[in-house]
């Protein structure tokens, strides 16, 4: 054998070994890819093949307590494009932008993206979809969905709230009960090829969506209407910053109505509020968002204020409960009291109340009377009750962003703080806290958790879950409650709350006027006027709180402007609830007096005005500190000129001394 031949043989064996070594290495690679890392690659491949399509569930309907629809889900469509199937991108983009009102260039970009499917617009109504369908364009698809719709725009906006474009609750009950309302979305899991087409024979997995539950509110649509109407009138008439009303059933904490003006349209909650229309376009998006955030705030639960005299109800109830004061106890008002070296004035310091009983003190809302009661109670006891009434903590009403209010720690309460708190200053509360606390005084002493929802029902109307009324605690005794009801009845019948008086109904209540606190000091000329009343006084069915924030007129006393609003809401509501009026003899007589028209007396001198009022057969009363020796000018009047009133009705005059 030649040496070449021997070399060739050796080399062939080397070659064989070399090839086998490479092939074994490749098998090793395959062990690594197909066995060791297989699951990782399989999962990545799975992600690439499968697409999860969400099938939306229908959002539950929100009903009022009697089954009226307040929020419904209307059919809407999601318009999307599968670029692979589009024949003529320009034509598709033009049609879409034309019908949906979108920018054509932006749509064209979407149509040309290299994706299986691109969403063009959500919540498109069926009419627009019909228009698009008629154009018979390839590559468009219309997925069924739903759009939230509030049949009565702006109605109960703060209770209902609104949802975003994905039907998620963003405010109000829509937010707090979102998890019940949304239901569970379904899913379609399918496999697709690299061009976005469904793989043949891939087993489609379909998980059916579960519709959301329907929510039944405690709100009564009719009472809500009354509240909205009277709140709007008060807001316009008083040129107020805002007006808020809460109507509650004091016995179980049910919110029957909750209204505020200004409000917003929950069908179009991003619309420019009317009062900002003029400069909306020149505002930055952040400024706009700030405005919207402020307009979406629910003053009834999100905002705090100093309750002023309405808080005297609490002071009275605690005083009576603790036995430090009895209705017939005597007090003396000298116009002001010295407390801790500070002179605290009665609101009527120019004409002190003098000697009076406790009941008379409540009727006249005399500050020194309550200072005395507070003193007798002492800070510790008084504040224990204040907290027991739920102040300083959330009521847990199912509405978003509830403020807890501010109650001083007992350690920070000196004689001055104790005195001011007793007449409702230096404490900050939310309207919902105050009405809940006074409801406890009215209902026999039980502090109820305010509730906005009664139950959840399915589509067949079966009750799925019932939200039971919840008593937080017994705060005062039934006896104290009884006493308080009769005292508060006399406030309306004879005292500062007489503007809430409705002939035939026994109404109990209390006025309140507080100067607004801005940056920790009292803001001059800015008031919050309120009135809190319940009826019938002996067996309360309804409790109403009206808060008027920054009334713009010259008359700002709660008894003058807030009490009539409560009276109006109450009178409508009591009649609606079929609580029959029972007129006293005196009332029946008054009812028969002839009607007269209130004359226009604004800008008249006080003397001329009084003459005019007498000629009309009316009475008058003058608000504010009046120097009778000077001639004064009438700034404002209540009722307004042109109103029809019974003969002998009192016309309230706001006057200003004429400069010499």
């Amino acid at each position, binding site marked *: 054998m*030649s*040496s*070449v*031949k021997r*070399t*060739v*043989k050796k*080399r*062939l*064996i080397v*070659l*064989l070994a070399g*090839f*086998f070594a*490479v*092939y074994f*290495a*490749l*098998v090793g*690679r*395959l*062990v690594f*890819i*197909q*066995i060791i*890392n*297989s*699951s*990782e*690659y*399989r999962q*990545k*491949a*799975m992600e*690439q*093949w499968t697409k999860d399509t969400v099938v939306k569930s229908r959002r539950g309907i929100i009903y009022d307590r009697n089954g009226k629809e307040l929020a419904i889900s209307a059919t809407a469509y999601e318009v999307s494009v599968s670029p692979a199937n589009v024949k003529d991108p320009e034509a598709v983009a033009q049609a879409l932008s034309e019908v949906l009102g979108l920018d054509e260039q932006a749509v064209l970009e979407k149509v040309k993206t290299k994706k299986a499917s691109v969403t063009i617009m959500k919540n498109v109504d069926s009419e627009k979809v019909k228009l698009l369908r008629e154009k018979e364009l390839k590559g468009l698809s219309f997925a069924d969905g739903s759009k939230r719709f509030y049949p009565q725009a702006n109605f109960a906006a703060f209770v209902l709230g609104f949802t975003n474009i994905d039907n998620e609750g963003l405010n109000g009950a829509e937010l707090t009960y979102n998890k019940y309302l949304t239901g569970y979305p379904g899913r379609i899991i399918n*496999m697709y*090829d*690299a*061009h976005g087409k469904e*793989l043949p024979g891939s087993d489609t997995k379909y998980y059916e969506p579960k519709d959301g539950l329907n929510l039944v509110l405690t709100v009564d649509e009719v009472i809500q209407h009354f509240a909205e109407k009277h709140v709007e009138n008060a807001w316009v008439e008083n040129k107020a910053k805002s007006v808020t009303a809460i109507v509650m059933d004091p016995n179980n904490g049910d919110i029957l109505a909750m209204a505020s003006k200004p409000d917003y349209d929950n069908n179009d909650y991003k619309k420019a509020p009317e009062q900002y229309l003029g400069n909306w376009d020149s505002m930055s998006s952040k400024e706009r968002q700030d405005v919207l955030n402020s307009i979406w705030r629910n003053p009834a639960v999100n905002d705090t204020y100093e309750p002023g005299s309405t808080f005297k109800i609490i002071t009275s109830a605690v005083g009576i409960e603790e036995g430090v004061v009895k209705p017939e106890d005597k007090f003396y008002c000298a116009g002001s009291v010295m407390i801790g070296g500070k002179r605290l004035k009665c609101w009527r310091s120019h004409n002190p109340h003098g000697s009076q009983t406790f009941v008379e003190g409540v009727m006249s809302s005399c500050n020194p009377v309550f200072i005395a009661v507070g003193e007798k109670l002492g800070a510790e006891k008084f504040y224990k009750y204040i907290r027991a009434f739920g102040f300083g903590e959330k009521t847990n009403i199912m509405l978003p962003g509830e403020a807890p209010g501010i109650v001083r720690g007992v350690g920070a309460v000196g004689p001055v703080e104790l005195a001011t708190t007793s007449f409702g200053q230096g404490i900050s509360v939310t309207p919902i806290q105050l009405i809940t606390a006074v409801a406890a005084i009215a209902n026999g002493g039980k502090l109820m958790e305010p509730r906005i929802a009664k139950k959840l029902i399915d589509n067949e109307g079966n009750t799925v879950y019932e939200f039971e009324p919840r008593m937080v605690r017994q705060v005062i005794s039934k006896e104290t409650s009884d006493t308080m009801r009769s005292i508060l009845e006399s406030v309306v019948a004879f005292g500062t709350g007489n503007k809430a008086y409705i002939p035939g109904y026994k109404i109990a209540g209390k006025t309140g006027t507080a100067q607004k606190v801005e940056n920790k000091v009292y803001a001059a000329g800015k008031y919050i006027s309120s009135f809190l009343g319940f009826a019938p006084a002996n067996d309360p069915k309804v409790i109403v709180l009206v808060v008027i924030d920054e009334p713009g007129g010259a008359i700002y006393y709660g008894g003058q402007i807030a009490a009539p609003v409560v009276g109006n809401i109450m009178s409508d509501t009591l009649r609606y609830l079929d609580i029959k009026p029972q007129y006293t003899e005196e009332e029946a007589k008054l009812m028969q007096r002839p009607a007269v028209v209130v004359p226009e007396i604004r800008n008249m001198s006080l003397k001329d005005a009084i003459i005019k009022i007498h000629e009309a057969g009316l009475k008058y009363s003058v608000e504010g500190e009046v120097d009778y020796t000077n001639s004064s000018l009438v700034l404002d009047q209540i009722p307004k000129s042109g109103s029809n009133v019974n003969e002998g009705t009192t016309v309230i005059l706001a006057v200003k001394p004429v400069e010499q």
Partner: protein
Amino acid sequence: MSGRKANNVDFTLLITVLTLLAIGVAMVFSASSISSFIRDNDKYQYLKSQGAFAIIGIFAMWFFSRFSYKKLGNLALPLVIISMILLVLVFVPGIGVGSHGAYRWIKIGPQRIQPSEFAKFALVVFMAKGLSNKKEKVRSFTQGVLPYIILMGIYCVLIILEPNKSMAIIFAAITFTLLFAAGAKMSHLLVWLTPIIPAGIFILIKDKYSLLRITSYMDPWSDHLGSGYQAIQSLLALGSGGIFGLGLGNSRQKFFYIPEPQNDFIFAIIGEELGFIGTTTIIVLFMLLIWRGLRISLSCPDMFGSLLATGIVCMVAIQVALNIAVATVSIPTTGISLPFISSGGSSLLFMMINMGVLLNISKNIKANGS
């Protein structure tokens, strides 16, 4: 293997080749049915052409197994000349056929033929003939090594112009392997690596396309939808097949995730449908082929037959190794088909001719085996 009569072909080799051919036809059908159905509304399109070439290939193999390889030796020079002419004809308008910007085919009637497949065969025959005549002179640089390097250079230039760099790499690999097998001095072979390395780097840097393929090889996930795409899709196919595979016909990656799955990446589809079992079976079959082939080389009494068999085996072995290395992302993506299995008429036809020649050589080996 003792007792096997002379004049019989190597039966193991024959069965191995026919098994690979059968797997190939089945897999080409499985891999191509979807895209050919979508594109041409005929899911049997590739099955029909691949099946037809398989049958023609079997006849060609049968023919060449009976055609004395010794006569091929005399045809060595004409084969080289014809192959050169064909490679030039690729660039002649009207005869050459372009696809995806590459001119790799010529038209003969309704059929496209890839001249480089023919040239590969011609190169192997020519080198086997020449080197077997050189005897001891194979150790000379100028007479043993240089002429073949020059021939390879001409082929490579023509093929790179098509352009078909992957094919040129195979030509170079076959040339060097054959020179090595024929007993050329190692120093004479290794000296060529000195200019090849910088030249290779230069070409890679100049050619952005190649460079991208290299970087994406290093981290295929870095450019998910770009140049690393094929590498990723190949890994996903192999990996999701696991040990046992998704079952014949059940590949999902063939739904356009792997472009032209019946071609260079068919190994990935095999891995997905038939799993690790399937891929190792393929590798084992090729190892069987290489073993039987080199056994024929070793036992062949004459040098020409021995080197011819070696050349044929190396051609198969190198292509298989490169193809599977690409599919397993062990080397950068390059377009090399898997012998007997990837679709493509010319490639299959010449593979079968090569196998025919190999079988013919096997007839001549000593009856008492190795």
